[in-house]
């Protein structure tokens, strides 16, 4: 598989380049814009969309981390659900603070990933997709069947916010933005480090990486566990934001959405899931007034985007950069 090579965007090989290059400048400008946004008269609806987008971006970026090893999971939302239920149960049943819930939201799915990882990560391609899809369904069934713990299909209503002040949409917006910056920043740093190089090497040629001394399975299992732990945190943030959790929020459809976000944005550059999230969150809102046709039009747009930009929306930036480079070459 080819790695997208948008200059500076795709898998920067050098941490310093990430910190000082133009992607860093764009990222800082973007973050500043997001920080300023609530200070404008935008209303709580926009803040709510923003908060949901930050949570989706964390989840999509965590899946991206796994995709970079060459594995596309169709059960990622199940781990998100495990994180959500773990946090909600810790805060509601054990009456512990949100911080403890957050730890549980990371640890519970990560441990499960560590347990099943050595088995499922030996599979590749469609087999991994199928197994993770089935795993996701099993987890969803557990959420539905274990009514005494999970509330069954009715879910758990009345989930408390992480802090009473976070009932304010603006406060939760900044709270989720903070998590998104820290977690996506961590993923970016990881992908630009030695481990990131090992990850890309595994995706490009597993046997070659193994021969070069990369402990392939160990790296894959660790990344899988990390990816599932991070998506668990996203689940906790979602549960405490919506203040209600139920199995339908963590079904196969949600797993598929996370994959689509990555495909739309671009699978092999971290900026891909971020662009994909923005597209995935904003476009349906622009189409909301079409009511019954909203999903149909959105589906057609997705097909068109995938048909014209098979490398994702990040390809637009790539084409632009290529055009600029070409112009400079022929210029005076």
């Amino acid at each position, binding site marked *: 598989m080819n790695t997208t090579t948008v200059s500076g965007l795709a898998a920067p090989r050098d941490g310093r380049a990430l910190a000082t290059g133009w992607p860093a400048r764009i990222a800082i400008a973007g973050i500043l814009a997001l920080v300023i946004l609530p200070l404008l008269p935008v*209303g*709580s*609806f926009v803040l*709510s*969309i923003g908060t*949901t987008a930050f949570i989706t971006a964390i989840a999509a970026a965590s899946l991206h981390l796994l995709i970079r090893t060459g594995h596309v999971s169709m059960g990622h939302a199940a781990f998100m659900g495990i994180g959500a239920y773990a946090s909600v149960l810790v805060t509601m049943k054990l009456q512990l603070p949100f911080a403890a819930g957050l730890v549980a939201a990371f640890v519970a799915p990560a441990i499960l990933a560590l347990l099943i990882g050595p088995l499922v990560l030996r599979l590749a391609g469609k087999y991994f997709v199928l197994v993770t899809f089935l795993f996701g369904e099993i987890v969803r069934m557990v959420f*539905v*069947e274990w*009514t005494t713990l999970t509330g*069954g*299909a*009715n*879910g758990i*209503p*009345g989930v408390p916010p992480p802090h009473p002040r976070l*009932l304010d949409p603006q406060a939760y917006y900044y709270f989720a933005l903070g998590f998104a910056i820290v977690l996506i920043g961590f993923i970016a740093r990881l992908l630009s480090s030695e481990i990131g190089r090992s990850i890309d090497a595994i995706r490009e040629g597993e046997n070659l990486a193994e021969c070069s001394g990369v402990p392939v399975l160990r790296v894959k299992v660790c990344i899988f566990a990390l990816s599932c732990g991070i998506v668990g945190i996203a689940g906790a943030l*979602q549960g405490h934001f*919506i*203040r*209600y*959790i*139920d199995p*339908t*929020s963590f079904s196969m459809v949600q797993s598929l959405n996370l994959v689509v976000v990555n495909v739309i944005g671009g699978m092999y550059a971290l900026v891909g899931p971020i662009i994909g999230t923005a597209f995935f969150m904003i476009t349906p*809102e622009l189409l*909301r007034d079409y*009511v*019954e046709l*909203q*999903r149909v039009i959105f589906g057609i747009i997705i097909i068109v985007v995938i048909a014209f930009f098979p490398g994702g929306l990040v390809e637009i930036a790539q084409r632009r950069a290529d*055009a600029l480079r070409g112009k400079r070459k022929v210029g005076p």
Partner: protein
Amino acid sequence: MDLRFGNFGFRAMRSLLAVSLTGAGLALATAPAVAQEELKIGAIAALSGGGTAWGLGLQRGVQLALDEANEAGGLKIGGKTYKLKLVVFDDQYNAAQAKVVADRLVTQEKAGFIFGPVGSPGALGSLPVTQPAKVLQFVEGYAPAILKNEWNAAYVFRISNSNREFAEPIVKWVKAKMPTVKKIGMIAPNDATGQAAVPILVEAYKKQGYEVWVDYYERGSKEFTPLLVRMLAQNVDLFELNSNAPGEAGLLLKQARQVGFKGPILQSGGSGVDEIIEVAGPLAEGFLKYDVIDNSLPAVSTLLKAYNKKYSGVFNGTSPIYYNAAHILLEAIRRADSLDTTKVRDELEKLGGYNAPIFGRVIWTGKQEYGNDHQLFHAFIIKEVKQGKGVVRDVVSSP
């Protein structure tokens, strides 16, 4: 190429601007001297995914009620006349989407009154938005938490019987009408609806001394023969379809007869007897069904006519429920003579006795069960399929 596209884009924008300005000028020139103010009524409905039939029913039921009010000259409040406009958004039968949509209706559209969503997940996802904002919401969904919550359901009303209201009267009706029945078989969807409905129904049957056998399936299943054969082996006397959706209830009914079940088949809950007949065909003969409306009543047949005039497709059971609820809300607004949601809520609570078009006299109940009287109690009927049509066999309970 980029430049050419840019020029085209510029030309297109310029043309669009010119057309828009011309259009705006024309609109201003032709505007009536005294314009009615617009009042937005919100609706959260599943218009894609598994709950689409219910969502469309909701949308259409409310729209028909608003059309009637608009045709009658609009809603007069505090000396002003309002034209009612329904603003509907799709929640995809999902809690997270319901929250987003509720947020949009409350903060962007400034809707003070919202109908829907139909199911429990959407209702529970949207309450944290509507209740603190004091937005009046009218929902269905059987989850007790809809009315028993941290806000004490201050601004939410359930507008049709939940199974808590109809389970016991129906079981008593079975006891009276079918004395030979001793054992009940139930097959239910393994989702929020099934898990909320079945335990209450089982409890009601057991309270009357029945033995009950229950099994579950995944929502979306089409082949029920193995489950039905297992049920036959239990020697059940009555097959109870509980709260199955019309499509699945129709298939269960058809396949139960095909595998040789001879006993009575009853559905205590759900809506849409016509859809079940459509699926089960001639094998639906003799099927008994809980229903909320009697199509032969003048008010219902008038609604049905209006529905068929405006829309195509089957008249879904949720339409009359929301049509009825919309009339109740409009009456409360008229009596409050205000759009203040607290004043309207207070009038709603005092609306007992108002003769709503479909369910008749309004009765609010639920204090004992939920701590507030925000549950509408209404009459319901048992229909029997005779010669391919659902006819009223009994009125089981009446307010």
